[in-house]
């Protein structure tokens, strides 16, 4: 899709976002759980090398939207979507596209750390690499593990105990381990669903700093209910309410001069 179209979706008056092409492109997306209509007609361009934040009150459809971007939504029985999602110009919901292969290109980290309890630290980071090897990729596992841990800012803390159980790490370290595990797949896009919701302030700070660094190598979409966090780490922010995307603006604009009165009500804390 042409860059100018993407800019139209991003809103006017934005120069910082004008250059990068959209890595992902969502059009007219509806997501359902049976009869529950959780995401309503959302369109969004997700530019490359940028951090996109999604904010909004609990239950507004942030996680559901995020999970449509790597086709995790459909792992829930009765869940389905309408609309299109393109990754690098390819429709990930097109017939014949394998959801499993989509997830290799679009990584995801969840609210609570999900380190695999029976695996070592190294084993966790390498957990997805077998999948890549199965589809014919060739690489040095040790190198990949080290690189992923470095990118997740965890290498120095764990390099001397790669064979220890991952459960011996603190919550914050486990969450960065999960980020490393996702990064080891070298995904084009990384989805983070409230990655600091279960962490203490210091760990939160580390993860936030990390997210900011990551965008050089990967396109990041982060869900957060913490507006300060969105302001700190993201380039553009989408505000969701009752399943609809009310506003998508460059982050600095959204928090200083929101275009929609509902956004303003939310960011100034006047909200039920």
């Amino acid at each position, binding site marked *: 899709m042409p860059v100018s179209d993407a800019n139209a979706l991003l809103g006017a008056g934005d120069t910082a976002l004008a250059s990068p092409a959209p890595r992902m492109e969502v059009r007219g997306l509806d997501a359902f759980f049976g009869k529950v209509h959780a995401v309503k007609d959302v369109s969004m361009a997700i530019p490359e090398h940028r951090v996109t934040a999604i904010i909004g009150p609990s239950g507004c459809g942030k996680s559901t939207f995020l999970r449509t971007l*790597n086709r*995790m939504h459909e*792992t829930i029985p009765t869940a389905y979507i309408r609309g299109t999602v393109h990754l690098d110009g390819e429709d990930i919901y097109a017939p014949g596209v394998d959801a*499993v*292969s989509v*997830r*290799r290109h679009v*990584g*995801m980290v*969840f609210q*609570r750390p*999900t380190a*695999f*309890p*029976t695996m070592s630290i190294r084993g966790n980071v390498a*957990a*997805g690499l*077998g*999948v*890549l090897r199965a589809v014919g990729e060739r690489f040095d596992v040790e190198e990949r593990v080290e690189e992923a841990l470095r990118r997740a800012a965890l290498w120095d803390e764990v390099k001397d105990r790669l064979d220890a*159980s991952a*459960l*011996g790490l603190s919550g914050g370290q486990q969450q960065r381990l*999960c980020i490393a*595990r*996702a990064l080891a*797949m070298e995904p084009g896009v990384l989805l983070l669903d409230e990655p600091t919701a279960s962490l203490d302030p210091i760990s939160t700070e580390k993860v936030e700093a990390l997210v900011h660094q990551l965008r050089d190598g990967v396109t990041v979409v982060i869900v957060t209910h913490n507006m300060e966090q969105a302001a700190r780490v993201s380039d553009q922010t989408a505000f969701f309410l009752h399943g609809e995307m009310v506003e998508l603006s460059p982050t600095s604009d959204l928090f200083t001069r929101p275009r929609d009165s509902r956004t303003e009500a939310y960011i100034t804390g006047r909200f039920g």
Partner: protein
Amino acid sequence: MSTGLSARTSLRRRFVNGFMLSLTWIAAVLATLPLLFVLFYLLEKGVTSLNWAFFTHLPHPPSMPGGGAANAIVGTLVIVAGASVLGVPVGIGAGIYLAERKGAPLAVFVRFLADVLNGLPSIVMGIFAWELVVVPMGHFSALAGALALGAMMIPTVTRTTEEMVRVVPSPLREAALALGYTQWRTSLRIVLPTALAGILTGVLVALARIAGETAPLLFTAFGNDFWSLSMNQPIAALPLQIFNYAISPYDDWHAQAWAGALVLIALVLVISLLARAATRSGFARASE
């Protein structure tokens, strides 16, 4: 007035409470009595007949004193190992299926069948293996015994695997799927290892249950007075040996039957202790 009344009620309540507690205490003691009695009796009768020869020698004919049950001990191990090879993979596979496809019609049906199978008299398992293996082969065999016991293991292993797989937190499954794992790979690489300690407990409990079974072996493994490790031939087994010796008219054989019973119960106890250890190590890991 009201205070006096409440004092009386509380006295009465305390009396009833104490009385019921004592009843449950007595019941608890009664529940352990048969086991203690059996253990004590076995030790008394069995230890005197237990000697090194029992573990190393073949049975002697009744005219010759001495002899042992080495072939029966090894035979029991062979049959139990064969039963595990047949029963454990089927049980674990079925358990994973039940856990992952909870409500599917086939799952409901299989779960029901597993419960029926669990309650089936063990001699019926023997008949089943006899029909399936002994009749076509034309003779008794260790394989037929292993099949009968393996089939008996399946329901226990299936249901424990199902329970253990179900308690694996679903975020772990999601994390694996999000890495590009297929459902199948997720079950095998993430869910199964996480549930393994619990599954191992189920397998050991099933082993302890079948190790002492006699009825399913009567017309399958049949028994054998000589050395045999072949799955294709009749094979000796401790429970069979105990049975045959116990119903014989010879005092020497009666003594050997006691010794065999002692060895068998020791084997079952060891397996049960291993099962407990496996459970504990699983809990230790889960609560880490």
